[in-house]
């Protein structure tokens, strides 16, 4: 099967005061349709630069990047690439252009020259998917952060992209808003086989991905399942990553009580491991 995204020796650098500043060094990875991948790494590790390459906002300076058969190489192919790769940014206020919820989704469709009679049904469909249909006539300014972010997502969904990149899309939201957006990611991935790339600093979110790409200083340090990533303490230290609170707790408990180490990823796993310890 042909992969959806293929990076081969992907590099990105920019010139500053005559010198070349390298941001990404020789990245190699591929993603298939339907993958759910988390990208983690310290501030400045190159995560967002990578996202911007995937969306043809930046053009690779060396190596190749192929998105659904189209090579990201110049402005000519950018439009094709962007049809398939949607981006949801950190701050929904920077992404939403209209004043009413449904108008914001319509903006995307008008730009794609969708016939006007088709626009209304697509708006309804996408707003239903993100649970904002009831508020379709509301003013965006009256919405909560989580609701705004869901409108931004609806705008992206209207394009029917094969892949959506969430670039720290939950970092400004309160706990419930964060859960809402995360649930949409899961639903899109599960029910619509949309490829999801979640760039995040919240390790509790990373747990839901099938795979994690760990970045440091413009390199990919490791690519693996969340369980293996969170079990690799040496890697975590090297990449300055933390773990979910329950994982941290259980690691510390094992260390202090000389128990065999075990990596628990979420609340239920932690409860069950503790029940075994305390009950057995």
């Amino acid at each position, binding site marked *: 099967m042909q992969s959806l995204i293929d990076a081969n020796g992907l590099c990105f650098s920019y010139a500053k005061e005559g010198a070349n500043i390298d941001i990404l060094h020789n990245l190699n990875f591929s993603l298939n349709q339907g993958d759910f991948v988390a990208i983690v790494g310290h*501030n400045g*590790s190159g995560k967002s630069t990578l996202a911007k390459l995937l969306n043809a906002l930046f053009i690779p300076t060396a190596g190749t990047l192929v998105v659904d058969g189209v090579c990201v190489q110049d402005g000519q192919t950018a439009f094709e690439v962007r049809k398939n790769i949607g981006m949801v940014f950190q701050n929904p206020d920077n992404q939403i252009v209209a004043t009413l919820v449904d108008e914001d989704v319509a903006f995307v469709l008008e730009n794609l020259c969708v016939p006007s009679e088709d626009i209304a049904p697509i708006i309804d469909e996408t707003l239903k998917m993100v649970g904002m249909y009831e508020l379709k006539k509301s003013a965006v300014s009256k919405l*909560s952060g989580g609701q705004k972010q869901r409108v931004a997502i609806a705008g992206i969904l209207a394009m029917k992209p094969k892949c959506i990149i969430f670039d720290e899309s939950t970092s400004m939201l309160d706990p419930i808003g964060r859960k809402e957006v995360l649930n949409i990611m899961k639903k899109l991935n599960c029910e619509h086989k949309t490829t999801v790339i979640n760039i995040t600093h919240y390790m*509790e979110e990373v747990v839901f991905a099938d795979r994690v790409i760990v970045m440091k200083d413009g390199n990919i340090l490791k690519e693996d399942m969340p369980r293996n990533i969170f079990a690799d303490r040496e890697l975590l230290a090297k990449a300055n990553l933390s773990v979910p609170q329950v994982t941290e707790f259980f690691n510390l408990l094992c260390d202090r009580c000389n128990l065999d180490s075990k990596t628990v990823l979420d609340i239920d796993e932690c409860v069950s491991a503790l029940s075994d*310890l305390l009950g057995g």
Partner: protein
Amino acid sequence: MPIIELKDVTYVYDGTDNLKSRAIKNVSISVEKGEYIGIIGHTGSGKSTLIQHLNCILKPTYGKVYIDGVDIWEDKKNLAKTRKKVGLVFQYPEYQLFEETVEKDIAFGPKNLGLSTQEIEKRVMKAAQMVEIDQDLLLKSPFEISGGEKRRAAIAGILAMEPEILVLDEPAAGLDPLGKEKILKIIDNFHKYEKRTVIHVTHSMEDIAKYADKILIMNDGEVVSYDSVDNTFKDVDMLQNMGLDIPQITKVLFKLRQKGFNIPSNIYTVEDAVNVVKNILIEKEKR
């Protein structure tokens, strides 16, 4: 005498007073000198509006704000004094960096206080040290340092004014885990060693449980709870109904209790949880 006292403060944001346009309603709270207060609440609950009342950015439509016993709106002269006492770190404060060098940026606040060159230099050095900004970084442009460094430089600019009260609006948002940990440590040190009052707005229940003495919960512009960490996290249902959450570890122990294990209910940090479980395991060994 409390260092901060709000009496029946209501803020109407678009001039026409109706229930909808009240961003905060009848807020009455007092904060003692040296306390570390965490403020939580869903987006749009009035947290930011509330803290902007603490240093004269917003004037209450009704009610009074007292800082150190002084009604800050009683006399225009109080404005400068209040802003000197209350340092406010906005969300994403690094967007406010503007000077040629990090050093000049940190010095901007103290300079405006009319301090001597010597005193300014001393304060810049001390603030830089507190936020772990090295000498060579001080001479760089604020636009060529990393995201975490920018955030710390911006906070140093406020610390250099040596405020009695430090107010921060989500100071760790958007930072990587290490950067976040550093910021939290800086705030904690300022509270512990400089003995200053801290007001910290956040969405992270884990952080607030670890550092705050008391938690203030805002919901739809009103104070719904202002209590110790223990009492605040007791009412899980109330918190979740307001779009909030409790620390992961608290949930784990809560579920264990539901399963019939005899575990205390007031555990919010990893350290405490490990100790509690360890003791239970030791007891079990003995039997």
